[in-house]
């Protein structure tokens, strides 16, 4: 009984972290149709940035923000100078993002060495709450809260601001959007930067929980893929729900069917792609 409860609460916590990871991927892959195979690298590099900021004595939250901003800048530059020229060409995009992920992985190894880094949890969030006699770390619950805040902020931005409307207009019909005066190309750079920044922010948030180490990128990328595909490309609600679904599949799969844990994780992705390609919450593209 306590096992199930712990697993359930932890599923939600993992879901929150997965949302921070995949919200940006949902924007980049869903809205811009770029198969960004370096999204895991953004997450990892962001986490390393966070580690370095923390070592300089920067406050945890500030470190997460700074890391997000730094990564957004880098992402923006990559989009502007490398990816933009390949718009609509999937194969070269795959090659480019994979190539860059190799580079980022090796740079991280150079700079931060192979040692695992696990920054301390921010002091105000240490400790655990007791739920029905079970301990549960406050920090993980805080991640869920942050994920919900980020989700709300993104939702507000995309659905309720003029900027968001312009982004959606650019996705809807790029040529017409340009014609009514929307700088679609700049907006797309912005989305990419935002997606990269979010991943980095998620990386810092995840660092006290997952720790940072070489190979983290390759672990996170498939998770981002499953979440977004399951939830539906381009749908924030989908990414949100997908994150928690995967959180549950991951936790219960590992605990109940360790031999088939990955089958349980990836089979839903195959089924969704085959039976409902737009995902659980995606819209059918006309």
């Amino acid at each position: 009984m306590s096992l199930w409860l712990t697993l359930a609460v932890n599923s939600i916590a993992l879901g929150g972290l997965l949302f921070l990871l995949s919200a940006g991927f949902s924007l980049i892959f869903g809205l811009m149709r770029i198969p960004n195979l370096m999204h895991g690298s953004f997450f990892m590099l962001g986490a390393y940035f966070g580690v370095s900021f923390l070592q300089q004595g920067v406050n945890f939250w500030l470190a997460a923000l700074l890391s997000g901003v730094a990564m957004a800048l880098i992402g923006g530059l990559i989009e502007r100078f490398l990816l933009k020229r390949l718009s609509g060409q999937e194969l070269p995009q795959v090659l480019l993002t994979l190539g860059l992920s190799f580079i980022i992985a090796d740079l991280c190894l150079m700079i931060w060495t192979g040692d695992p880094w696990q920054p301390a949890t921010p002091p105000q969030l240490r400790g655990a709450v007791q739920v029905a006699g079970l301990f549960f770390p406050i920090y993980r619950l805080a991640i869920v809260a942050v994920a919900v805040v980020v989700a709300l902020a993104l939702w507000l931005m995309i659905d309720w601001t003029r900027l968001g409307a312009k982004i959606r207009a650019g996705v809807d019909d790029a040529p017409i959007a340009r014609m009514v005066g929307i700088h679609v190309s700049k907006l797309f750079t912005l989305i990419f930067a935002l997606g990269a920044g979010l991943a980095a922010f998620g990386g810092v948030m995840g660092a006290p929980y997952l720790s940072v180490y070489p190979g983290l990128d390759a672990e996170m990328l498939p998770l981002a893929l499953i979440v977004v595909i399951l939830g539906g490309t381009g749908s924030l609600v989908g990414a949100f729900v997908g994150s928690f679904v995967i959180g549950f599949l991951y936790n219960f799969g590992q605990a109940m069917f360790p031999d088939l844990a990955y089958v349980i994780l990836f089979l839903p992705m195959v089924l969704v792609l085959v039976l409902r390609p737009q995902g659980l919450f995606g819209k059918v593209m006309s």
Partner: protein
Amino acid sequence: MKVQRRTVLKGLLAASAAVAAPPFLRAQAAPFKIGLLTVKTGPLAQGGNQMEQGILTFLTEKNKTLAGRAIELIVADTGGNPAGAKTKASELIERDKVNVILGPLAAFELLAITDYVRDNATPLISIAAAEDVTQRKANPFVIRPSATSAQCCHAMGDFASKELKFKRAATISEDFAFGYEQMAGFQRVFEDNGGKVVKKLWPPFVTPDYTPYIAQISNVDCVFNGFAGSNPVKFMRAYADLGVKDKIPLLAGWTAMDDALLKSLGDEAVGVISAAWYSSEANTPSNKRFVEGMQKAYGVLPGGYSAGMYVAGQCVEAAIQILGGKADDRKALAEALHKVSLTDTPRGPVKFDQYGNVVGDVFIRKCEKKDGKLVNTVIKTYPNVSQFWSYDEKAFLGNPVYSRDYPPAKNLE
């Protein structure tokens, strides 16, 4: 903190040039080649880098000359996977024609190349733990100056049952040979002393979050973990975060509480009791030199990966001495390596059994916080521990190799 490899190499070159070799050695123009099979890229690079630092520290100390022979070190990066280990081993043996190979890091890498080094008659000094390489499938070309997977765990099983008086234990480790063998060793001694292992958990090597496993642990006196690489850091944080640490004491194998890992750990590691074949606290002269050398060159506290390579270097030196400098016959070198017996190494006295595995001390340490820093304080030393523990060698080898299913866990609940 950054590894200044190039500077280190430069320093080495300068040092070896400055100290001219004695005249009688000049005749031997060809240097003695040591190949280092390590991991410099990918998830295992941490241990790989430490291995390289360990051997470099030793060679620097010796001015790149061992028993009068000039040494050339060739470093090969396997990338941490078996296919890479195979290719790189063949690079070292067939292209570079090294006299001896140090490494590799991981058990699955060692398993992929043992047959190959035997076929190519190249001595190998490994710190990877795959048991059978020095047991049922003993390889005349392989010696292991570190420990088998179970060597320290036997001691931990003994300590947990006899000194800590634990009755019920759970084990958790990665789902591969190194994990199986460690847990099996612990279980065997623990249960032979009247304890019960009631839960054995096997998360995969790549596990972002250990909570689903930790959540399954309850109603035991202790948990023994055998994680390696960066996993112990993640595991112990989750273990503490979930509040289990305060209720159930945590025991660890050597990789899980390696001294080099302490800088990556936080308060969650305080109180963890581990069994290791090396302690940076050890009071031998060579260990002092070693720790100082590592501090000076890299600013780090050395752990088992570095120490293993340092000891490996000492073994090479001793073997060349045994052969009187004529160490170019690789078969003879392999035999000499088996005969090596050292009294002063960073890990204490070292000698080898007939299967090439070390007989040496095992330390039981307790992690404490001193002056704001984590240290593993030695609380008990088991001297001259053999890979067979106190069991009869023949009977031991008559059993199957330690695995996920052997010895059978009869007390699982």
